[in-house]
């Protein structure tokens, strides 16, 4: 794994009104690295990764993506988002378009690829997420797990350099979580840089290079998974792990 940093957050802070969502958060993600962010709800995990593609603007500190400082400027952020894929908890597929159209609209309208080129890429990724036969269906005709896999394929079609996952399995029925995680594990094996907010600790153990534990808007602990799961440095992380692992 190369040690070149791709996301560098230095002391970033973010408030919504009086509520401090992030306080002095610093984190470096290197190329090819898989980072899993966990922590209790309301700890700022989602806000943090939403900052990484400019869906939220950080108020203080510095954030650079692949060497470029992220600042509040529409064309600049748009340019950056093409390289940073995002998968949402609620899938957010476009309901009025077919699966295939969901996948090709970004490459065609944003990357200005021809329809043929975009379709070739789209079919490749549909194959990768194992639903090539659903290309002509609408999102509403698919199961939750299938929809989330389409959402992953949609992000991949933009050929991003980093993939962000914001609790990708949290709104899925239990029996569909596995199929989505399998796709994510395979993606990790291709060497994709990934930042994943999740409570799926089995997945984290399997793929994470780095565990990040957050609480009330701060990073409490950054450890390699072997340390994090067996002997976390912070008492708070130990408590959190006890709570979610005993089930």
């Amino acid at each position: 794994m190369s040690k070149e940093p791709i996301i560098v957050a230095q002391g970033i802070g973010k408030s919504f009104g009086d509520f401090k969502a992030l306080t002095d958060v610093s984190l470096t993600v290197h190329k090819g690295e898989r980072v899993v962010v966990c922590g209790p709800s309301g700890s700022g995990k989602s806000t943090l990764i939403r900052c990484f593609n400019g869906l939220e603007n950080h108020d203080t500190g510095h954030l650079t993506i692949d060497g470029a400082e992220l600042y509040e400027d529409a064309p600049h952020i748009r340019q950056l988002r093409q390289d940073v894929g995002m998968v949402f908890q609620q899938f957010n597929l476009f309901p009025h378009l077919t699966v295939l159209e969901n996948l090709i609209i970004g490459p065609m309208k944003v990357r200005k690829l021809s329809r043929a080129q975009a379709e070739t890429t789209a079919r490749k990724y549909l194959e990768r997420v194992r639903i090539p036969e659903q290309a002509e269906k609408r999102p509403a005709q698919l199961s939750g797990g299938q929809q989330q896999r389409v959402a992953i394929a949609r992000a991949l079609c933009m050929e991003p350099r980093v993939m962000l996952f914001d609790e990708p399995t949290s709104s899925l029925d239990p029996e569909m979580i596995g199929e989505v995680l399998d796709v994510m594990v395979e993606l990790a094996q291709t060497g994709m840089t990934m930042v994943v907010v999740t409570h799926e600790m089995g997945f984290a153990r399997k793929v994470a290079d780095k565990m990040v534990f957050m609480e009330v808007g701060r990073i409490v602990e950054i450890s390699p998974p072997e340390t994090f799961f067996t002997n976390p440095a912070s008492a708070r992380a130990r408590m959190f792990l006890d709570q979610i692992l005993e089930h």
Partner: protein
Amino acid sequence: MPAANRPLTLKRVLNTPAIAITLYAAIVGLICFVSYTGAQNMGYNWQWYQVPKYLYRFTDDGFQAGEILTGLWATIVLSVSSFALALLLGLGVALLRLSGLLVGKGVAVGYLEFIRNIPLLVLLYLFYYVLGPVFGLDRWTAAMLTLAVFHSALISEIFRAGINSVPVGQWEAAASIGMSRAQAYHYIILPQSIRIMLPPLTGEVVHLIKSSAIVSVIAVAELTTVGRNIISDTYMSFEIWFTVAAVYLVLTLILSFGVSAVERRFQPET
């Protein structure tokens, strides 16, 4: 509970088909009777046989539209052009209001409050007697602009509600694949809002067609003006106003049925 065992309520009695139809016929009959006897008592001379020639005539040249059909056509052209302009204006105002710019919002809200709080008739006078001479607008243009501006206010609110009804996640998904705001509107947001906006927009077209009658006060030669002109020649006010009302009714009913057919096509497949 089997139907036969249910207690016989007044509602159930009134809803039996035979009684319901009889009652309905009685009410309609009563209205016709009162109008007819009322007209008889004032010595009104019904001349329905005169009416068809104002609708159409067959001459040696074949079918010819009468005054009323010509007026109807003018009403349609006026309504369609005003509505098209109102859609553009309404979309512009809605986008300004949603732009997130204070100036945009200020301009949009000012426009809405100004238009919504002036009577349509006064707005028409403003366009015809004030802006008309200033900008050299003829009566047709003044009428079209008045209707477009008046209805753009409500239409912009319909657009705004439709756009706001699309979940914020759709914006975020569009943004996350690098789309600009304009692209997100074009490819993602507006196509989804159309289904929600269609029913109230239909209502607005019907409303516009009906309010277009008001331009007869500046003598634009549309359906209502034509009706008034015929009456001043023939004194057949009952027949002509009934006919004009029926023509408006047929026009708006056809439109409503047509749009509900289109709406069914926009229902999402599941």
